[in-house]
């Protein structure tokens, strides 16, 4: 408690509050520009933090991180291009709402959901970190493998009507995820002699290309005939009914987000897909999903921002980064002489509690910063398509290059974009690619480690309580569509009688 008050007094210093706000403004911008991401924002600003006070440095990075995860959903709603992969589900629901002239309602809800998710995760981090660290430590290779298998079941949900095409895309993407060094033996596979592929196919440039270029090409198809499909930006309003009818959704999504955050290797992108999937399954109106469902937006946005706090738990308590930006945090902390681990909370109490309390303040502040951005960015709908399309291509190119400063990634981005356009034209869903590329590596590594650990005694793996829990979830997740189908048939039959 003493430490919390100490942290609070640090955060509330005007200079530190200013740093939080600056971080948010930068972060939202990085998130909102297609091709740019929270990770990139944190990476760009890390060298600046070397010369700052440790507390201010942590707050700046936290602001960029939270803002970046949030910012990705602004272009997702307005133009259907997710600023970051974590906003892909948001784009599937937000874009139809914008077309109906309800962009303001969607953006307001995005902002509220993101803040809710962020604040919940910040409290989880502040209050439950030591306890949740125990869970994080229990997540070993078998658990990670099970989560990846569970996650792949989401492919079925994302395929909507065309299950076969969705599964095909997911399967091919899983194969692509195996390109590069074998995680155990270390030899390169399927690289066709390209040394650039030694480390595997980097998911980030692929996803940039896949989710921005097809939209650009679609814009160009009609560039001369239409000015824009939305002529008016609607007012930013929160509908009370949208909130009250989704209380359960908020809670579930926040828990999923924090949970995924704790698990090393799974980040905000995976959390938003999971949460979206669960929301659709438990929705009374699943047919609304894909056509502008408010519940879908809430699920995706609450969960991806709830990851932010969650992913700092394994980082602070075990020194394991739970997401790519968290890995950058680790570097910044070491530079400032803080060594993440079980003793961090006592050895560096002042810095840590400033960060933890700051996380809450940042997420509350994000609501206002976000609101300002949303109001201003609505205007991009009025831009001529030619200008918008060109800007997006430039941003995507710069973004793909700046991750690794490597021209190969730019090439990969364009290839992915063209393939994506062909897929969209032929009604192949794009989201399973994201899921399979992100989960493929976790799955392969988890599987081979589990086999090494339990070779010759496969049933002993069932002595791990968390593994069993995840196993049951997975079985249910795969069986659910069949159960539901059977129920629906029964109902239909009963009606006919």
């Amino acid at each position, binding site marked *: 408690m003493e430490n919390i008050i100490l942290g609070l007094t640090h955060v509330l210093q005007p200079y530190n509050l200013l740093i939080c706000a600056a971080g948010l403004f930068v972060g939202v911008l990085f998130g909102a520009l297609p091709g740019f991401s929270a990770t990139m924002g944190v990476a760009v600003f890390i060298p600046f933090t070397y010369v700052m006070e440790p507390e201010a440095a942590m707050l700046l990075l936290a602001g960029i991180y939270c803002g970046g995860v949030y910012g990705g959903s602004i272009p997702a709603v307005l133009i259907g291009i997710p600023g970051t992969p974590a906003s892909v589900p948001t784009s599937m629901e937000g874009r139809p709402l914008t077309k109906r002239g309800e962009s303001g309602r969607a953006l307001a809800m995005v902002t509220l959901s993101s803040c809710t998710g962020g604040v919940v995760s910040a409290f989880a981090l502040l209050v439950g970190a030591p306890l949740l660290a125990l869970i994080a430590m229990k997540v070993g290779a078998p658990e990670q493998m099970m989560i990846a298998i569970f996650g792949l079941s989401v492919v079925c949900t994302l395929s909507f009507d065309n299950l076969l095409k969705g599964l095909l895309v997911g399967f091919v993407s899983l194969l692509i995820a195996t390109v590069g060094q074998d*995680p*155990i033996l*270390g030899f390169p596979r399927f690289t066709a002699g390209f040394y650039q592929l030694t480390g595997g196919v980097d998911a980030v440039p692929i996803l940039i290309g896949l989710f921005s270029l097809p939209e650009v090409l679609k814009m160009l198809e009609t560039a001369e005939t239409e000015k824009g499909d939305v002529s008016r930006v609607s007012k930013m309003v929160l509908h009370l009914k949208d909130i009250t009818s989704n209380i359960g959704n908020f809670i579930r999504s926040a828990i999923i987000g924090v949970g995924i955050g704790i698990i090393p290797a799974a980040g905000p992108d995976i959390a938003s897909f999971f949460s979206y999937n669960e929301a659709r399954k438990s929705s009374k109106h699943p047919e609304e999903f894909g056509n502008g469902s408010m519940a879908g937006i809430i699920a995706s946005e609450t969960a991806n921002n709830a990851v932010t706090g969650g992913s700092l738990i394994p980082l602070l308590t075990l020194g394991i980064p739970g997401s790519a930006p968290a890995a950058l945090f680790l570097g910044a902390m070491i530079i400032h002489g803080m*060594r993440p681990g079980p003793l961090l909370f006592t050895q560096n109490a002042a810095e840590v509690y400033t960060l933890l309390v700051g996380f809450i303040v940042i997420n509350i502040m994000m609501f206002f910063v976000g609101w300002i951005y949303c109001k*201003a960015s609505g205007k991009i709908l009025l831009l001529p398509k030619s200008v918008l399309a060109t800007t997006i291509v430039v941003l995507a190119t710069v973004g793909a290059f700046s991750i*690794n*400063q490597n021209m190969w990634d730019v090439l990969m981005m364009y290839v992915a974009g063209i393939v994506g356009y062909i897929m969209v034209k032929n009604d192949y869903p794009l989201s399973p690619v994201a899921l399979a590329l992100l989960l493929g590596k976790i799955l392969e590594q988890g599987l081979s480690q589990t086999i090494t650990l339990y070779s010759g005694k496969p049933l002993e793996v069932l002595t791990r309580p968390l593994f069993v829990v995840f196993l049951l979830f997975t079985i249910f997740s795969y069986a659910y569509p069949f159960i539901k189908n059977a129920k629906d048939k029964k109902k239909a039959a009963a009606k006919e009688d």
Partner: protein
Amino acid sequence: MKTMKRLLTMVLAGVMVLSMAACGSSSSQPSQPSGENASAGSGSDFPKKIVQIIVPFGAGGGADISVRTLAKYAEESLGQKIVIQNITGGSGTVGLTQLAGSAPDGYTLGYFACTNSNDSLLFDGIQYGVDSFVPVVEYSADPHIIVASKKSGITDMASLVEAAKANPGELTLALGGAWTSHDFLRISLEEKEGIQFKRMVYQGGAEAITSVASGDVDLAVPFVSEAIPQIEAGNVVPIAITSAERFDVVSDIPTIKEQGVDYEHTMWRGLVAPTGTPQEIVDKLADAFEAAWNNPEYQAEAKEAGTMTEFKRGEEFEQFYLENHETYKAMIESGLE
């Protein structure tokens, strides 16, 4: 509203300029030096402009932090700015390929560690080899700490070897990655003691030691900075440090040699320049880095980050560089069988 819009536009423009500058510097720099090659040849007025160091791994990682710490102090003695370029991808091979193709004028250096001269054996399509680089300085040699899980009952080297011999190929060893310094430690230790471990490969040393802390795996060999938190928290049992002498930060952990096994293993880090860089310039660079390395503030900062400082330059480092290449080549070839 209007001012807000104007503000946002300005911020946007700022970010664009920033990112353009970041990209511009990396794409234009390699081409610039070639034009000034003739004058750089003499080396008497070196350095006339910014020196860049290519780090083939991400900002904030172990390699990046170690280079930045040294570069910060070297700027003063060099009399020029040093810019770190994180050119990542391809498990570090993309950045080194770019370094090998850079103009040999001393304005482009690169981070190099013990395994890199053998990358062409490990990966497909690598054009560079041991001859593509001139060693400039070695500035650190990081020891590993061997740790055991509490469950395993292993408390020192003797009981480790005993347990490994009693269950050949059954004792699990968590590594931070395939073909990393962790893996080479395993190969050489197995050879030395005539034992065999079961490999468990993780993404990084922190994940590896956590698997030991949770009891899933018996042993791990993380670097000092990765090991300290779990050792201090009492979640793992420290067995030995792999350097020749004890390390200040963890001075109560004995070396392997003290426990009667004649074995040591460290991961050295250094800076190299493309082959063809004039000797005079290499010497000047080495002078600057040596002065930085001797700065007590640098020493303190490096120790805090968990690196054991060791310095080699000139003929000593050149010879070590070539010997090291042969040692690792032999280990890789034995591993490939």
